[in-house]
């Protein structure tokens, strides 16, 4: 069985079919990109997987478990993390504290244990701090560790959001336009990190992206969408030269 799978996924807003019977599957450790013109349904698919929307029909499976009806907060507990197109960070907290919140799903101590500040609580805190430090090192965030988010440039915030997602130790990560708002150099860094997430951390990546050079550099496979339907699926070069995809982008 496949690692992650969407079966006949549909999302209708009245008569508008934002997502229309989409089927796709991912293997463990794969990097899959979803491309398509604006309004093709890319973000809708993300919001369906992260359980922000309820699908009109269809089902979602992760590690052979059906997740179609899980509430949004248990998605993180299952090992799925996401980033947002417009960056959703805790603006008035430091980078370090943002990342520590990412450890929430691994906090197992009860309120009473914390009130008594038991040894297990102290030990867990050290583990969380250590994990966060590993992520900081992985994404070169050392210079920003104690800086407050609201004072950081856009490019750094984008990386902090990725770091926070990694702190949850996800098995599957959903990246919503990881390169939007980044300059060429930052986009290059991002492409290396995405590859490293796969090769060093063994994370499966599903991303929505507009920058075709980034898509072809990192993706194992690409899905092209238009009007909620899958136009083409396959190798990056193959999909980009597919006549229907070219037509969708150029409006032929």
């Amino acid at each position, binding site marked *: 069985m496949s690692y992650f799978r969407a079966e006949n996924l549909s999302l209708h807003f009245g008569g508008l079919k934002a997502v229309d019977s989409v089927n796709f599957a991912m293997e463990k450790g794969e990097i899959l990109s979803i491309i398509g013109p604006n309004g093709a349904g890319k973000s809708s698919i993300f919001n369906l997987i*992260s359980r922000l929307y309820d699908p009109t029909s269809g089902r979602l499976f992760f590690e052979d478990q059906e997740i179609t009806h899980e*509430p*949004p*907060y*248990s*998605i*993180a*507990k299952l090992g799925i*993390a*996401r980033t*947002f197109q417009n960056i*959703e*960070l*805790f*603006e*008035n*907290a430091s980078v370090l504290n943002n990342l520590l*919140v*990412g450890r*929430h*799903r691994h*906090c197992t*101590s009860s*309120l009473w244990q*914390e*009130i008594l*500040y038991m040894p297990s609580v102290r030990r867990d805190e050290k583990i969380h701090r250590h994990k966060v430090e590993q992520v900081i090192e992985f994404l070169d965030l050392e210079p920003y560790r104690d800086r407050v988010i609201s004072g950081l440039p856009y490019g750094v915030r984008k990386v902090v959001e990725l770091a*926070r*997602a990694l702190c*949850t130790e996800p098995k599957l990560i959903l990246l919503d336009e990881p390169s939007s708002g980044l300059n060429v150099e930052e986009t290059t860094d991002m492409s290396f990190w995405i590859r490293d997430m796969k090769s060093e951390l063994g994370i499966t990546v599903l991303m929505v992206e507009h920058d075709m050079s980034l898509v072809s550099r990192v993706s194992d496979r690409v899905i092209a969408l238009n009007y909620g339907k899958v136009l083409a699926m396959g190798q990056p070069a193959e999909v980009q030269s597919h006549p229907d995809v070219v037509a969708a982008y150029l409006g032929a």
Partner: protein
Amino acid sequence: MLDFVQQLVSGIALGCVYGLIALGFVLIYKATEVVNFAQGDLMMLGGFFAFTFIGILGLNYWIGFFAAVVAMAAFGMLAERLVVRPILGYPQFTIVMATIGLGFFLRSVAGMIWGTDDLKIDTPFSQGVLRLGGLVLAHDKLSVIAATLLLCLLLYLFFNKTTLGTAMRASSENMLAAYYMGIPVKRVVAIVWAISAAVATAAGVLLAPITFIHSNVGLVLGLKAFPAAVLGGFGSIPGALVGGVLIGVIESMAGFYLPQGWKDVAPYIVLLAVLLLKPEGIFGLHVRKKV
């Protein structure tokens, strides 16, 4: 000088109560961006609960106090579940009207159940006074100040040192992000309402020997606590308490030194002045839009 200190202490005691109600406003506002205009009425209901447990059922003061706080925490969760959650996501105005409606409802129901007379609870602090030189400080007022300090310490530790408290702060800052960190935001919001109602109840019971318990006590005090929250910078927890104490002290001083009638107006004059000079409140975050 003695008069001044005397007025200062009563002002601080009164202000602590405003601060505790304002704290409830702020907690709920921070977590859900909902201004709960029934906050004062939650305090009123808490007072009646305590009266029922202590005055009618004859429980020990401390047990009755505790039972009232627990019962009101449950009631706060219920109110959130029945009144607020179904309309979350609708315009602010809808939710504001719903909480105002909840306040009316609670006042009427309290009037029907417990009647319209002023009720009082015998507390260990009702009678005694502390004499310091020429100063005469009533125990009831000192107990309010001490309890407020204790509550603040507990809340501070809760919010800063526990996972649940941190999850609450995270949810209040960015609900969407909190969801994807695995925080059950809806449950967190329910707990915030429980804490707000519990804090309001503590204020109501502490205040019982000073103002007595009647169905309109929450309306009057809520109207004073609201400027306290605004003065402190809506959204700041320490601000709510400082704002409350300021309003209490100003009111008390105006009542003593200024001609009659100024007592109730003075806090609002100060509020207007502060808003003119520092619109974000004393502890409010200054939000500047970047372009």
